[in-house]
């Protein structure tokens, strides 16, 4: 078995964060933190170690998810995956994020994305096919192609 992932959730909607946490844990991974705003997310990114940060674009302090992605990207500590109902808000360069899971995702869509991401992180390139609701950033797609 590949090692489970440590996940940071940046999501202002409690219900969605709660459910995401359950699904992440059901899949055998662990949630190391939950932030509802950009400032909380940045503080958390400084204090905990995570393999993946799931970042919503709309947070309690505004459309600041892109900021969070850039901040985490600069630290180069975790892979950022946007998780948003507003994928059009994501800049073309993806602000350093590896991809986006478009909301509303299906339960299976999320589970498959987790599996796919685990493969990307633990032993790239991934062997499973990329799930329907999951889009890769152009840069990360290139990285995967050259790793193959």
């Amino acid at each position, binding site marked *: 078995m590949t090692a489970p992932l440590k996940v940071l959730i940046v999501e202002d909607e409690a219900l969605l964060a709660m459910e995401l946490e*359950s699904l992440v844990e059901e899949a055998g991974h662990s949630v190391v933190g939950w932030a509802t705003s950009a400032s909380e997310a940045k503080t958390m990114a400084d204090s905990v170690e995570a393999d993946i940060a799931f970042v919503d674009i709309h947070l309690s302090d505004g459309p600041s998810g892109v900021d969070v992605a850039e901040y985490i990207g600069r630290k180069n500590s975790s892979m950022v995956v946007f998780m948003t109902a507003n994928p059009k808000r994501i800049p073309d360069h993806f602000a350093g994020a590896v991809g986006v899971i478009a909301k*509303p995702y*299906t*339960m299976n869509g999320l589970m498959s994305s987790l599996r796919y991401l685990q493969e990307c992180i633990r032993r790239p390139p991934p062997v499973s096919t990329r799930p329907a609701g999951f889009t890769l950033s152009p840069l990360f797609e290139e990285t995967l192609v050259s790793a193959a």
Partner: protein
Amino acid sequence: MDWKGSKESADAWHMTDNLHAEQGKGDPFAAAIRATRMSMIITDPRQPDNPIVFANDAFLKLIGYERDEVMGRNCRFLQGPNTDPSSVDRIRVAVEDGTDVSIDILNYRKDGSTFWNALYISPVFNDKGELQFFFASQLNVSDRKRSADRIAADKDRFEKAVKERTAELEAALEAKTTLLHEVDHRVKNNLQMISSLIIMQRRTIKDEAIRASLTTMLERIEALSTVHRRLYQSKDVSRFDVADFAKDLVTDLLAASGRAEIEPALELEPIIIPAEKATPVALMVNELVTNALKHAFKGRPDGTTGGRIGIKMNQPDSHFNIEVSDNGVGMDSATGDASFGMRLIKSLARQLHADIEWRDAAPGTRVVISMPNETRQKGSFS
């Protein structure tokens, strides 16, 4: 007789005005100039300050002065405070250079009223090429000028109105787009929340039948979610590609079922339908695929649970066809008329004006749906 080429010295003109009627009368050309309705004057650049040496009656009538008030004066007394200095400059330069000039200039009458003067000035040279006179004609073009001004003003006003209206419409469009994005964002978030609520509820339930029922409900909500995700991913939110949707749906349902022994077989032509049909079509396809997954591959005598679920989509004419098939156990044609799934499928088919038929595929079941597609007839895929 050509007055310009006349043997008589051009000074004759100088005399003409001082001449008494008799002599003028003897010269038909001079008489014509005197009597014409066209205002005309002659000035003498050889005298200091280029004074008027001849003026006809039309000129006097146009400007409202008596002859003795204008003779011997430079024409500048016709200018006033609103006369454009650059026009005056152009005339001055032409006179200095001895060239001709044609210009609209604002002039003043004796009573102070103004008129637009379409002025034409041309130099007159003698045989030796020496400048003798300036000949000038004036035409009152105030009416033309006024209507030109009015047209220009109308055009300005119209352009301004169009600009304002365009800005208003652009702002309205932007507001509408923002609102659409906002609503879209909320719809998607709410769908996500509904799914989350069902999943959380399901976790707390021990009873298999209730869990299964919640799962069916989740599948239906997720079919709607997939529609919304796909709908607003595309550039044109009024069109929906059912084929792309079907691919997402089948892949997702099969993966979620964890039944690796069931294989998808997709033959999908892109089919674009209007957005308002997306939800009923999606729900119908979802019901048929989940039914095949749930019912087609169980209860076989040999106990195997593997097989194939096929989806075919094409649009041979103004209709489009969707076929969902399996090579499972087949179904009793009498089954399910009263069950909820079956009633849902049939009602959706009615809503879509679709024909739906369950056929025995021996082995398995083939459900064939055929419905009219207006997008084709309208012919606009833009």
